[in-house]
């Protein structure tokens, strides 16, 4: 198997505050291969966006990477600063944010924003960059790209804008894309289109994608594998189909059960009692144990379960088992 595009190993992100040190990311590890889409799912505050920010080096002060490694195509990047890190961004790794309206500079045309990115990373003349930009818009499905390249962001609809954002992220041909809630701000009808677009482009180009979202539906649609995060740690990591239908971690199972499914005609939504702990009050041992129906004495003891210490799929001492073996 060839080297994964992205390798995150035991990544820890810390935020020193007046009340103590918080750990929004606490020992997260996963790989993403070329052309693969890894969904990172979890509630707000679970640390999924933080991981993405840490990878691309855009952590807001005072948050910082405290320990662990981030390898991009085998090269460690977690300790790079300044110009070295900047050269990687855009050219080897790109990021897409949630709100396409605020992601684009309202005072510059779409064409200007594209060509400046292209010219920054690729050695092209202005007219060549211009043609590239038009091609990029075309690829993401903007009709009449040659005319619309001189339009301003506010002249596009929400879905179109997100396409422009995708074009911008991909125009310098990076190997990794981190998509942070790319569909959350869009209409439901448009979400599916954007997800399909992202999938197609990344498969075609062999781009690795970290798709961060709180929406299990998007994950089920788009991702190959999924990582479930809870309180800064990984709860479960595995192929999408398996995790969704046969979740082993009680938290994941709870998430699946509480996702409404139209066809099942449920009367009431099942909820997981309680709430995810605040970062300054993470329970000892397994972070989930206070809300877990299956918790036992061992779950309360430190150190808590990790993927490596358990079966590599779910960070749980007593994972849920299923009668039949899942056949792939």
């Amino acid at each position, binding site marked *: 198997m060839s080297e994964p595009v992205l390798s995150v190993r035991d990544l820890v992100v810390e935020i020193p505050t007046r009340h103590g040190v918080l750990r929004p990311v606490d020992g997260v590890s996963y790989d993403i291969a070329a052309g693969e889409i890894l969904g990172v799912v979890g509630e707000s505050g679970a640390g999924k966006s933080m991981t993405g920010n840490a990878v*691309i080096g*855009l952590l807001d002060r005072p948050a910082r990477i405290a320990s662990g490694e981030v390898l991009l195509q085998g090269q460690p990047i977690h300790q790079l600063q300044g110009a070295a890190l*900047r*050269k*990687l*961004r*855009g*050219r080897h790794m*790109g*990021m897409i*944010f949630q*709100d396409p309206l*605020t*992601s*684009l*500079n*309202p*005072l*510059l045309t779409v064409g200007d924003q594209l060509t*400046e*990115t292209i010219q*920054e*990373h690729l050695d092209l003349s202005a007219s060549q960059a211009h043609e590239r930009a038009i091609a990029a818009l075309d690829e993401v499905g903007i009709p009449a790209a040659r005319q619309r390249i001189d339009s*301003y962001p*506010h*002249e596009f609809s929400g879905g179109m804008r997100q396409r422009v*954002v995708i074009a*911008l*992220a991909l125009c*310098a041909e990076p190997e990794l894309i981190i998509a942070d809630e790319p569909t959350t701000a869009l209409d439901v009808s448009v979400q599916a289109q954007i997800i399909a677009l992202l999938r197609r482009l990344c498969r075609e180009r062999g781009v690795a994608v970290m798709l961060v979202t709180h929406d299990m539906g998007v994950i089920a649609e788009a991702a190959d594998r999924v990582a479930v995060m809870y309180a800064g740690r990984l709860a479960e990591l595995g192929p999408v189909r398996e995790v969704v239908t046969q979740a082993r971690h009680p938290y994941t199972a709870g998430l699946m059960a509480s996702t409404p499914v139209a066809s099942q005609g449920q009367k009431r939504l099942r909820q997981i009692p309680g709430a995810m702990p605040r970062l300054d009050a993470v329970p000892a041992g397994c972070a989930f144990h206070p809300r877990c129906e299956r918790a036992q004495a061992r779950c309360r003891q430190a150190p808590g379960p990790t993927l490596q210490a358990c079966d590599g799929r779910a960070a749980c001492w007593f994972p849920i088992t299923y009668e039949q073996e899942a056949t792939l």
Partner: protein
Amino acid sequence: MLAYIIRRVAQSILVLLVTGFVAFSMFSFVGDPVENMLGQERTQADVDRLRGQLGLDQPFVVQYAKFLQQAAQGNFGLSYRQGREVSAILAERLPATLELAFVSGLLALGGGIGFGILTAIRRRGISSNVIMTLSLVGVSLPTFLIGILLIYVFSVELGWLPSFGRGEVVDLGWWTTGFLTLSGLKALVLPAITLGLYQMTLIMRLVRTEMMEVLRMDYIRFARARGLRERSINFRHALRNTLVPVITITGLQLGSIIAFAIITETVFQWPGVGLLFINAVQFVDIPVMAAYLMMISVMFVGINLIVDLLYFAIDPRLRVDGKAGGH
């Protein structure tokens, strides 16, 4: 967009009418010119006759209209204090104020924008902290105090610069300028600094705040995520978006330089319209006060209008739907 322009112009005219009304009322309220003119030995017949001659027996509205008409032609009558035509006095003194305002404005803009950008980009450096502290001083101290202190240091103690007046001026017919003589330029330094300092600190703080706000925006993050250079981000992206709201407020501020000139001109005995106005207030010279008020309101209204239209030209979002832009 046309509707917007028409609405703004209508608003401006309303402001002018109201200030005209206030200016006119000053005449009505304060003292009775007829009494002043006729002296002790007068009969009621004399009073009535003079009233008729001056048109003072007409209804209020008619007098008001006449006042506006004359004002539009620049005729404000004679100064109570000097006995000369108010419009002539104003025209004489205007160049002094305008030259001072111009130099102060340049200083305020250049220094303000420059320091603003510097302190926004290098937020934690020593130079930033020093500049911010000095700016706090600039904003807290009343203008006249700054002027006095400058005079104390540079005129009394060091003797480098003059402490009053305009120095030698060159008469160009309808304009007198201090730009062409060394003493004229020297005389400009302290007053320009005094007048411009407050504006400069305001602009600086505004630019700084706006720029820091802009640098937090998502599109800046996205630009960073695309690997654009810091310099490009600061100047091409952030600055452009910063200047858009800054321009409106700055434009309005620069207009008020003319009014704040009153204080500076008093400190330095600068022979401009500001000093003229304050003397008029002290002597209750109503025609001059009224004329100054009208002149200022025309200037302000004009500047406000120009700034609004400028905003349109710069922010592409306004051209489409006419809503006010932000970030």
